């Protein structure tokens, strides 16, 4: 049994679990970022360089910024970062929703036939990855792109609706 993925798994799960249980929301976010970096490290260990760096760039660099920004902008006081414990009804709802998502993912993973491990480890160069994404998997890429564009436009519409007319002031 290889010890590296075990350690990485412990780091990922422990930081994510601690993030869920902390009262201080900024610390939670930072622990969540640590968990994302753990996933990037796992990709690196698994030999998927490109996925690892993309994970670090997108989650460590961009998504974490957006989450932190949202946290800072929605606090009432500027140092008010503690959240009260949720009421039991909400906890139950969260458990149900989370459980449903976990169930769907688990069912998909179990039902997907995985190719049995071959002797040689496939080395996927970035160039080959790009050709695959642009060739056989172009449809999936386009669908993802359209989805993200729609989300971006939605965000712009929401933000533009709440805009107060202060632009142009010196």
């Amino acid at each position: 049994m290889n010890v590296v993925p075990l350690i990485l798994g412990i780091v990922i799960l422990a930081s994510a679990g601690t993030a869920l249980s902390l009262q201080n929301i900024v610390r939670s976010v930072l622990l969540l970022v640590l968990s994302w970096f753990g996933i990037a490290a796992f990709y690196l260990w698994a030999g998927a360089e490109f996925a690892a760096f993309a994970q670090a760039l997108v989650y460590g660099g961009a998504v974490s910024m957006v989450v932190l920004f949202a946290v800072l902008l929605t606090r009432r006081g500027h140092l008010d970062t503690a959240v009260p414990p949720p009421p039991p009804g909400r906890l139950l709802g969260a458990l149900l929703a989370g459980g449903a998502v976990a169930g769907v993912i688990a069912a998909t993973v179990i039902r997907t036939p995985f190719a049995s491990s071959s002797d040689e480890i496939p080395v996927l160069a970035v160039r080959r990855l790009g050709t695959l994404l642009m060739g056989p998997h172009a449809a999936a890429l386009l669908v993802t792109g359209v989805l993200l564009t729609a989300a971006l436009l939605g965000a712009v519409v929401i933000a533009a609706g709440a805009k107060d007319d202060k632009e142009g002031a010196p």
Partner: protein
Amino acid sequence: MTAGATEPDSWLERLPLIARDLVTGRLPGPWRWIAESLIAIAVVFAVFGLLFAFLTLAERKVLGRIQNRPGPNRAGWGGILQPFADGIKMLTKEDIVPRTADPVLHFLAPVALVCFSLLSLAVIPYGRHLAPLDLDSGVLYFFAAGASSELAVFMAGWAGRNKYSLLAAMRALAQLISYELPLLLSLVPVVMLAGTLSPSGIVAAQSGWSAGFIPHWHILTPWGFAGFAIFMVAALAEANRSPFDLPEAESELIAGHLTEYSGFKYALFFMAEYFAMCALSGMAVTLFLGGWHAPAAALQFIPSYAWFAIKILVLLLGFIWIRATLPRLRIDQLMRLAWKFLLPLALINLLTAAFWHLSAGWGAGAQPLRWGLGLAFVAIPFFIIGRRLSSGLGPRTYRYAAP
């Protein structure tokens, strides 16, 4: 370090390799690999540590010269020992942690910042045989490490429990998210045309000369010139350098996210800023200025690492010059510049690069047309968008108080 050259090169070019083999030559296989990696790490630390020290001195001297004053001139001969005096001062100062601060994050922030900025120095090819880490997706690695440093700036701002620090953290987040986009988009054409994400591959794509003295560097194409300009502006913002040093604007925020830091932690922040500046300059040299290639075929007798050093020093002096020349932007001007000017130009530059790629097969007679169209693709959007952005802003009228 990798050795991948095919042509024979001079002993001067191979000097770093010879020196390394003198040390590691007798070790058995796996130990040799570890020793070579450790030497590469130590050399990068030593070179950039010293460069950091003397860059602070150069910055203060050049700023002084531009402002018509001598700059530091007491420690050592003409002030040459000033960085070491500063270092000793920083090390011996008291390390103050505010009572209400978050002590763990307050400690982690400078450490994380220096770590991330050092990580990005690993993938830059410093010479023909001097690439500490030759990754297939090295460019992506570089920007992943750079993007993570924003997190450390936020940690520093939040941990201090100081309103100025927190404001600075917010500004840093907004600024760094905004300028990440033009920075990444400006290098996409390079990756597209070189067909690789490996820094060594990008340098190799810029090898060779036309007529022996016109190098095939990316900056000498229309899209490369525009890309270089966008990259350098965004790099200034990413490195928190003037005129984009809003997170530490001392006239508004005391010292921004550095307000609650003192002593060695404060010095670490400066170290990280200079490392990030060096790393971004090194990446600019790699992507646009031909990496370690000599500017002319006749100048190849000068070793490749010397050419890299000359280019990176020129860019660093440019950073200092800009700091001495341009006033700091306001936060709304900063955002407008990123989203309404740099981002559209970077997107248009993608089209310019695509045109350049598709017109590569045009004959010698069509070359003036190719260059004209390429330059028009760069210049016309620049003037149109620039004019629209600055409309209603000038010319400035001065009104004096009535007597």
